[in-house]
């Protein structure tokens, strides 16, 4: 059979092909990691703006979030690749610290990163907001009546509880973000999809043909492993929290991009 014919998999164990592919995959993981950290920070900031009492803050933040999360990510990335002025890109190239991985030093990465962050921070904002809003009103009222300032109420009472509820939804959004890093190949960043395409061009690593089907099955396998581990991690976190706090965890779901309703395999009641 073509798919499992050993001749078609020879590229895996001959030459440096697999290593080359894996180096590309590392670029994806680096972009994903940076994107995750920044999206979480900006998402939290947007969520705080959206739930703030001032209409002057919450309405513009709401419009901002609704615009970015209703556009296709690839659309945003392509637009930014064309529209970000080259002076910004140069500034990015100069500003990024030297200890960052080499792939991220590329000026093209700016458009991709901006796109990933604009989109995912908007989605994460909605997840966090609903996590916070799902708390009982009494929590904030009690905190306020104890004399805590608004920032203290958020820091010590609201956020620790609200953010805990959004862990599963956040993790499934992060898995989506990890997959979406492949989209940056469309604006010519050298990552796993580009490396895969180069591998399949004839005689890339002396002689051994790497058939495109097998190369991309291998890439898919990389992603399956990482994303599967991420979803396991989320479940572990949840079980640990449940043991620690001794409660059944209430969860907020349904606002992530691809709603992956994790069923309650870990629930004893099931």
């Amino acid at each position, binding site marked *: 059979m073509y798919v499992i014919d050993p001749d078609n998999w020879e590229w895996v164990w001959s030459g440096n092909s697999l290593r080359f592919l894996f180096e590309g995959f590392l670029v994806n993981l680096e972009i994903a990691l940076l994107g995750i950290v920044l999206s979480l920070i900006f998402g939290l900031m947007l969520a705080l703006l959206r739930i703030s009492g001032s209409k002057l803050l919450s309405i513009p933040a709401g419009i901002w979030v609704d615009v970015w999360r209703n556009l296709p990510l*690839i659309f945003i990335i392509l637009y930014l690749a064309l529209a970000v002025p080259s002076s910004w890109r140069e500034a990015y190239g100069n500003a990024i610290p030297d200890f960052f991985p080499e792939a991220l030093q590329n000026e093209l990465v700016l458009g991709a990163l901006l796109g990933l962050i604009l989109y995912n921070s908007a989605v994460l904002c909605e997840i966090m907001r609903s996590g916070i809003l799902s708390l009982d009103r009494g929590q904030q009222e009690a905190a306020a009546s104890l004399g805590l300032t608004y920032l203290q109420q958020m820091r010590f009472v609201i956020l620790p509880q609200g953010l805990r509820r959004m862990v599963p939804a956040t993790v499934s959004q992060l898995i989506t973000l990890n997959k979406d890093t492949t989209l940056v190949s469309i604006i010519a960043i050298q990552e796993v999809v580009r490396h895969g395409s180069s591998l399949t061009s004839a005689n890339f690593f002396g002689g051994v043909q790497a058939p495109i089907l097998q190369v991309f099955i291998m890439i898919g396998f990389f992603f*399956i492993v990482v994303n*599967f581990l991420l979803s396991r991690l989320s479940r572990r976190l949840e079980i640990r929290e449940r043991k620690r706090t001794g409660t059944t965890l209430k969860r907020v779901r349904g606002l992530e991009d691809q709603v992956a309703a994790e*069923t309650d395999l870990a629930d004893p009641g099931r």
Partner: protein
Amino acid sequence: MSGLWEVLTEHLPEFSSGFFVTFRLVAVAFVIAIVVGTLVAAFRVAPVRWLNLIGGFYVETFRNIPLLVLLFIAFAGLRRAGVPISPWVAGTASLGLYTAAYIAEALRSGVFAVGKGQVDAALSLGLTYPRTLRLIVLPQAFRTVIPALGSLVIAMIKNSAIVGASLLALPDLLKEARQIQSETFQTTEVFFWAAVGYMILTLSATFAFRYFERRFEIKR
């Protein structure tokens, strides 16, 4: 340089043909996703272990692979392997099968929400397992997952842009927008109208699913 309105009026034919390509892509992929998703969900809740395993394998595979990689496998990969697959078939099938994994998960959680007592009751009345699923469980499960289906359809509309931007080069809304942009260099104007096109699709999906939710609500 022409303004925002002129860009739309001058390129209306391209914009609208791109819009309808995106619409057709989403519509066909949605049918595939619902059919396959229901089937996989039925596999996953069936009382047969090896069917569960097949269903679980399907979901974990398609949910964790990036859609772009799936498109490479389905189009370039299969063509190299000698399967003469057309871009249209590869695009709709990839988008549909990818979304099917999510729909299967959503349905499965809906099935679990129905409650074991109802299944036991149906089985004890002498219904076979497939009939129990079809007559008792699935009608209720579909109702509870309508909101989740809504956000999956919106995600699918957004993901359909990947199909046009990838190697398949279907002339969808994004592809047409890029084409017009490369002729006029009015990036912001062109992308603004394409964004309006995507917003029309996602907002109408939102309203449609909100209507279905009310329409099929179980009155208690």
